[in-house]
């Protein structure tokens, strides 16, 4: 691929990404008063989106094939458990990640 072509592809990805991010603000952000429906969505969407993002991150899991998503399941449980216990974001993330690395590198090889 020529450099010009590569630049064109990167520009396309950058422009489309920015358009997606700006679109809601362009369509709805201009009004002085945000429609109540959008305010409502702003309140409930974060909960639903975080659930969606967790599933999105785990989309590569194969429950029907070994290791049946066990490393992910155990590591997610570790993160949630740590967080319920200490409610310390850093501890939950670091603990869960180390747990996952040990699981996939040594136990579920």
């Amino acid at each position, binding site marked *: 691929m020529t450099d010009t072509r*590569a630049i064109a*592809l*990167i*520009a*396309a*990805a950058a422009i*489309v*990404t920015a358009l*997606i*991010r*700006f*679109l*809601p*603000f362009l369509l*709805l*952000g201009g009004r002085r008063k*945000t429609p109540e*429906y959008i*305010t*409502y*969505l*702003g*309140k*409930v*969407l*974060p*909960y*639903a*989106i*975080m*659930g*969606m*993002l*967790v*599933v*999105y*991150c*785990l*989309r*590569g899991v194969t429950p029907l094939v070994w290791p049946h998503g066990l*490393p*992910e399941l155990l*590591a*997610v449980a570790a993160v*949630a458990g740590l*967080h*319920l216990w200490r*409610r*310390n*974001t*850093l501890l*939950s*993330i*670091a603990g*869960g*990640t180390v747990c*996952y*690395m040990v699981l*996939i*590198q040594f136990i579920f090889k």
Partner: protein
Amino acid sequence: MNRNLLKQVVIKTIPVMTGYVVLGFGFGILSENAGYGFWWVLAMSVFIYAGSMQYLMVSLLTSGASVISTALATLMVNARHLFYGISMIDRYKGAGAKKPYLIFALTDETYSLVCHGDTPEGVNPHLYYFLVSLFNQIYWIIGSLLGAVVGSAVTFNSAGIDFAMTALFVTVFVEQWLTAKNHIPAVAGVCITVICLVIFGGDLFLIPSMILILAALSLGRPVFERKESGGGAAAELPDASGLPEQSAAYDTRERSSRHD
């Protein structure tokens, strides 16, 4: 702006720092190995600034994809960002000159830090959001450039370290669960996405999931509004934007922010 605020921003963004340096590093190695080194990595991390899209970008570049298919792939992979905008419209209102960058830099990870709307007391929320967004992008750029420059020299087995990002979202999910009075939106988000993943498969499930989540939340509105989905910080925020830019008040929050 002062040191105290910067310190709070750093503490708040450490989880993303960890995740972004690691994931950016992975992207840098991948891109460098595919023949797109330092300057290409820098350009992509500055201008595209979307993690999973940049990983995909490397394969698009090496497979000789067309501009149209690149644009379509971007649309599919990043459509979820539409949701972030919808839920940040009120909170980013009145951000002035910072607003374009706030919107441009609204990645999954930045969204997970700004969506609850909890800002340190006495700090202009828009300044705080701006610094969180900016720091996160800087972490991403540094991580990806490190990957491009020293990636091949690393011998430590880092398999699985990218789980840091999943862990961040799980943490935010649990945190929201603890603060919300109404758990139906969270449960709906998980269940609908899982069902769509099973039906549509790993490449196509996001857009149907988004449509169904939107439909479910819209249909449930009369019920949810009566229940007042607690913890939704959007309701508390509008007044906060009038706060002075600097104040000693946020000193008291310094310690508690670790547990945020």
